[in-house]
């Protein structure tokens, strides 16, 4: 991995956090409602995937956590933050592991991340509400996670191909 100057790294951190924050806000303002709670595009995951490929796992984790906290405190609620955090952490863990295995491309990793994000939220919902009933949403959220994750993966791929030329 090439060495980067601290200033460059800080600038990149700030930019990616800000971008993720804007994506979270856009999604908060324009929710896509399908009558099923928890289904959303997950635009902010775009930043997570791109960061994972351009910066590395530790940096990606920091960016995700900061972004979720910022969004939660600014226009969300504590409970929303809890759900987002669970989704973001599980999604990050799955994507980082799959990337490390080296057997998957961006689309596959992003898809697994989308599914993991929904699974994380579902687990928190089941814990908070003390019921296993929420798992009846699982098939729907699984398909939704695959679709949104694949879309984000394709877009990430396009972005990464262009970023290759910027050093």
């Amino acid at each position: 991995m090439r060495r980067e100057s601290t200033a460059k790294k800080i600038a990149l951190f700030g930019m990616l956090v800000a971008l993720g924050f804007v994506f979270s806000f856009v999604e908060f303002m324009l929710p896509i409602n399908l009558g099923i709670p928890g289904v959303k595009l997950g635009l902010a995951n775009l930043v997570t995937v791109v960061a994972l490929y351009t910066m590395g796992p530790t940096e990606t984790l920091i960016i995700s956590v900061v972004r979720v906290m910022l969004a939660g405190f600014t226009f969300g609620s504590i409970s929303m933050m809890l759900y987002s955090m669970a989704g973001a952490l599980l999604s990050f863990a799955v994507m980082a592991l799959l990337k490390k295995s080296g057997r998957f491309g961006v689309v596959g990793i992003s898809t697994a991340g989308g599914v993991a994000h929904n699974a994380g939220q579902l687990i928190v919902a089941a814990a908070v509400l003390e019921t296993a009933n929420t798992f009846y949403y699982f098939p729907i959220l699984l398909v939704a996670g695959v679709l949104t994750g694949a879309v984000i993966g394709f877009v990430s791929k396009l972005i990464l191909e262009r970023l290759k030329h910027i050093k």
Partner: protein
Amino acid sequence: MRTDTKKNDIILIAALLAAAAVVFVIWMAVSRTGGTVVVTVDGDEYARLPLDKDTVLEIKSSGGTNTLTISGGKADMTAASCPDGICVDHYPISRTGETIICLPNKVIVTIEDASESGADLYT
């Protein structure tokens, strides 16, 4: 930087979709049109209503109020004090196991079999 889509990606996506299909088919096989609407607030049972009798129930919780309307054999959340209103947007439910959840108010509306006692599920 390797960003190319691999065969493994396709297999992964297919496996996830297959898993969803299997869970969905199992769920469709075990669920039937239920007979009882059970409302719980913060894990405690709040009300138990027959699905075939049209009624409107005000659910009062620490978080606020939710209005549950039972009509034409389906239960639907028609109003809620929560900011997001996700439970209000939820489609009306009628099959056993189907659930409408209001996370901010910790209200769960679920459909059960008329014969089932169901108490052990919630304690």
